[in-house]
Structures are given as structure tokens and as C-alpha cells.
């Protein structure tokens, strides 16, 4: 009898906890919900008193207006190009370097690695002034190269993959070497396939980092045709002023890719954060 009462108390407590947490989640998602409903309102009803969740009509046309107001397809293509190429360069160059730091023997290796380690803490913000001057010298203002290259060779990727390579057993490659495999074969055929989880995690976070980056594009891109999504949204904010329904439509468009990414790659994201604190905010 006693245990039955205790169980009933427990079920009640669990239901209460479930309900409260649902409430918390509703509050947390509400800004995005409000973003979408505002994006669908006629301009005159954005600030209706008292506030109404849904306007008198669902104006899907706002999305088309927002899309045409500034070249949004261009922003998305720019974002994909910059994030895609940037991620590819990071993966290739850091996995090669990580191999050199973990599997090849050369004089000064540990010293150079220590220098790499020492730069892990340097924030991008500290580098922007000289980086801007370099871009000006190279003629990379308003260019894909200027958006991609400065952040494609930071020590982080090399460090992460080197740590991962160190955990892989050497027996496999030793066997392969005895069978006559060259260094390239060992890297390409043996180590890289084993590194796929770490590479996947690094790829996801590098991609998000490029996609969401704002300060750097703000500094070196003034041409609306070279803007990435966050910069385009900022330009939108500057030009539309108080057309909040269009602005929210633009914001919705720029949040959708991120939402899809989380849905598709939640495992990599969670694993990456739990293991290495990637992409900290």
C-alpha cells in the first residue's frame, strides 16, 4: 500500500515536471515562433494592440518580397561557396599537417607543434586589423578568397586531428609499410578512413563557423553581391528600417538552413561539443 502511494506520488511529480519543462520549451522557442508569424502578417498588423499571434491573413508573399528586396539567393550561394570551400581547405590542410605532426619524424617537430598550440587561444578579433591590411595588399577585399583564406589555416583543426591520430594504433600502418605501402598510402588508405568521425565533426563546426561569421564579412565586404547570409541580413536591417514583416521573413530564411543542419547532424554536433568543446559561444 505504502509503495503504491509512493508510486502515485512519483507519477504525479513526473507529469508535473514534464508539463513545466514543456512550458519552458514553449517560452524558449517563442522568439522563433513570433519571427515566423510576424513574417506572415500584413505590415499594418505587426504591432497590433493587443498583440495577436496570427494576423488577419497569412501573407506568404512577404517571403517573396523579402527574397527580391535584396539578392537573397546570392547571399545563400555566397554562404555555400565560402563555407563549402573553406571547410574543404580546413579538412585537407589540417589532416595533412596532423599526419606530419603525429606520424612523420622530423627535427623541430615538437617545437613547431608547441607554437601551433600557443596560438589556439588567439581570438579572431585580435587579428582583424592586420588581416584587413593583408587583404588590402592582396586585393582580396570583396572577394571569396578574402572571406575564406584567413580562417582556413588556424591551428585548431590541426590540433584536433593530431590528437585523434595519436589515439589510432600503429600496428595497421606498420603492417602496411612492411607490405610496401608508401607514406601517402598510409595516410590516404589507412588513417583517413579511420578518422572519419573526427573529420565529420570538424567539418560541421567549420561550416557553421563560416556560415554564421559576421564581423569579418562586415569588415571586408561592402559589395552587396559578395555578402554572406548574416551580412545580407544586416544590410536588410539597414535598408528596410521598420518593415518588420519583411525583415522577419528574411530572418526566417536565414535560420532555416541552421535548423535543417541541426536536425540532420545533431549527432555530430552533440558529439563534437561533448568531446572537444568545438565552436564555443
Amino acid at each position: 500500500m505504502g509503495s503504491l502511494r509512493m508510486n502515485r506520488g512519483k507519477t504525479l511529480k513526473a507529469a508535473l515536471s514534464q508539463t513545466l519543462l514543456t512550458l519552458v520549451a514553449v517560452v524558449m522557442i517563442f522568439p522563433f515562433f513570433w519571427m515566423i508569424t510576424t513574417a506572415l502578417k500584413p505590415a499594418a498588423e505587426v504591432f497590433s494592440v493587443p498583440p495577436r499571434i496570427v494576423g488577419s491573413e497569412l501573407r506568404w508573399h512577404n517571403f517573396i518580397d523579402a527574397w527580391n528586396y535584396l539578392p537573397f539567393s546570392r547571399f545563400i550561394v555566397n554562404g555555400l561557396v565560402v563555407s563549402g570551400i573553406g571547410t574543404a581547405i580546413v579538412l585537407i590542410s589540417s589532416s595533412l599537417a596532423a599526419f606530419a605532426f603525429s606520424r612523420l619524424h622530423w627535427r623541430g617537430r615538437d617545437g613547431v607543434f608547441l607554437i601551433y598550440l600557443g596560438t589556439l587561444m588567439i581570438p579572431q578579433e585580435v587579428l582583424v586589423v592586420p588581416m584587413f591590411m593583408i587583404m588590402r595588399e592582396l586585393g582580396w577585399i570583396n572577394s571569396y578568397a578574402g572571406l575564406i583564406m584567413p580562417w582556413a589555416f588556424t591551428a585548431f583543426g590541426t590540433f584536433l586531428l593530431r590528437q585523434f591520430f595519436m589515439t589510432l594504433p600503429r600496428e595497421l600502418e606498420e603492417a602496411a609499410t612492411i607490405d610496401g605501402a608508401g607514406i601517402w598510402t598510409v595516410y590516404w588508405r589507412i588513417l583517413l578512413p579511420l578518422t572519419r568521425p573526427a573529420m565529420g565533426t570538424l567539418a560541421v563546426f567549420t561550416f557553421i563557423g563560416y556560415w554564421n561569421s559576421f564581423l569579418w564579412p562586415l569588415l571586408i565586404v561592402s559589395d552587396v553581391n559578395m555578402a554572406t547570409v548574416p551580412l545580407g541580413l544586416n544590410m536588410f536591417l539597414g535598408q528596410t528600417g521598420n518593415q518588420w514583416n519583411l525583415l522577419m521573413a528574411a530572418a526566417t530564411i536565414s535560420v532555416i538552413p541552421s535548423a535543417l543542419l541541426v536536425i540532420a547532424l545533431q549527432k555530430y554536433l552533440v558529439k563534437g561539443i561533448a568531446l572537444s568543446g568545438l565552436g564555443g559561444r
Partner: protein
Amino acid sequence: MGKVQAPKRNQTIAARRRRWAVLGFLGPNLIGFLVFTIFPISASLVISFYEWPLLGDAVAVGFKNFLRMFTQDPVFWQISFNTIYFVVGYIILNLVVSIGLAVWLTSGIRFAGLFRFVFFLPVVAPMVANSVVWRLLFVPDTGLFAAALATIGIEAPNWLGSPNWAMPSVILMSVWAGFGYNMIIFIAGIQAIPASIYEAAEIDGVNAWTRFRHITFPMISPSIFFATVMTLISALKVFEQPYILTGGGPGSSTTTIVFYLYQQGFQNYDLGYASSIAWMLFLVIMFVTAIQFWGQKKWVHYA
């Protein structure tokens, strides 16, 4: 093993080939690293000792930029205060919310994956988009927050337009946008705690608070330490939220250090002063991290 007596000539060929291999593997990354990390960080230090306009000639001025920062620029003190205000408020709220929700989500809740998605989404969404959405919520008088408060008879402040409310508003928005990241770290930490410890505690009949205080908290303290360091560093660099929400105002009440760096370097075109601000930020980040690693011995329990 069979080629014990390999000729010497072959060995040098092998050594040369190995050297080329090192160059081939390391080269691409190392060149980029030298050009885009080592050179700019050194250049940044050098520039900070110059008066360096965007166009025109640079003049070496010694420590003048740093002296200006501390003795002749009252705005810099205001900005430092703002940054500390943001950092302290943001870290405390972020940790409380993220630890609380991590514990809650691991207490046998149904649909935990869905909740995690909801809490995590703003972390991955562009911060500019997050900020634009909150700018709408914060609109005075007719915005959602003000209007909602008005319906229950409370007159809301002009959130982003009032010197007293602007920074708390920026902090609130930033916590919403950022806590999901730490929450994921803590969920992983809690899930790694052996269930047997909690079972033993249950037999002893300890309550939820004691369970948290004496089991969960000490067991995840390495995660909390790690998250605190990362959050502190990212908070010191805050830029997008004040840039979009308030433009640093009203006055300079929400201008933070990176924002000020941006203004000095890219609006006033004073690259020398901007670089000295950048180096101050870097020194602070290194100092804070060093203190944290030193202080962790007192309260972090490594298994």
C-alpha cells in the same frame, strides 16, 4: 628485415624522400599558418606601437596608444566596465540555466531529444538573425514584451533605449542564444556518471538538492570548469548582439571591447589604437585563462 645491409646510397635517398614527404604534408598548412596567424599576431603587436591611419604614413609612437587607453580615454573605462558587466551577468545566468536544464533533461523526461533541439537551435542559428528577432521583441510600447506587460498593467521600460535596461536586455537575449551549448556539455557530463552512485543515494533516501550538491555537481565539475573558461572567453569577445540590438547605445552604455575595437579601427580608421585595444583583450583572455587553470585545483574533482 631481409635487407639488413642496405647500401648507404639508398638510405640517403630514403631520407631525402622523407624530407619531401614532411614538406608535402606540413607545407600547405604551415604556409597558411605563418601568413594568416603568426604574421598578423606579430604585426598586430607592432602596429599597436604606431599611429597608423588607414591611408597615409604610420608613425612610431612608443607606448602612447596604451597610455591613451588608460589615462586619456574615459570611454575606454566605460567600455571595460560594460564588458565586465556583460561577462559577469552572462556567465552566471548562462551557467544557472544550462546546468539546471541539463539536470532536468536527464531526469527521465520524455521527448528529451525534442527539447534539446529547441534549446540548442539558437546556438546554431546566425547570431545576427537571433539579434534581429529580439530587436523586434524589444520594440518600445508596441513590441511583444512591452505589449504583453501592458495587458497586465505594467508599464515596460524602453528596453534597448534606456541606459539602465539596455545591457540587461542584451544579456538576456545572449543567454537565450547561448546557453544550449553549455547545456549539451553538461548533459554529456551527467550521462557519464555511473548510475550505481545515484542508486546508492536513493537507498539512503537523499533529496534532489543533496543529490545535486553532493553527486552531480562534483562529478561534472570538470565540465563546468571547461564550460566556464570557454564561456568567459566568448563573452569577452561579444560583438554581434550589441551591434544589432543597440548599436552600442544609448550613448556608449552597451559598447563592448570588440565593438570599440571595430569603431576605432574601422570607423575612425585609427588602426594603431585598435591594435592596442586588440592586444589588451588578448592579454586579458590569457590572464583570465591562467587564473582559472590555477584556481581549478580548489574545486574541480577529476575522477
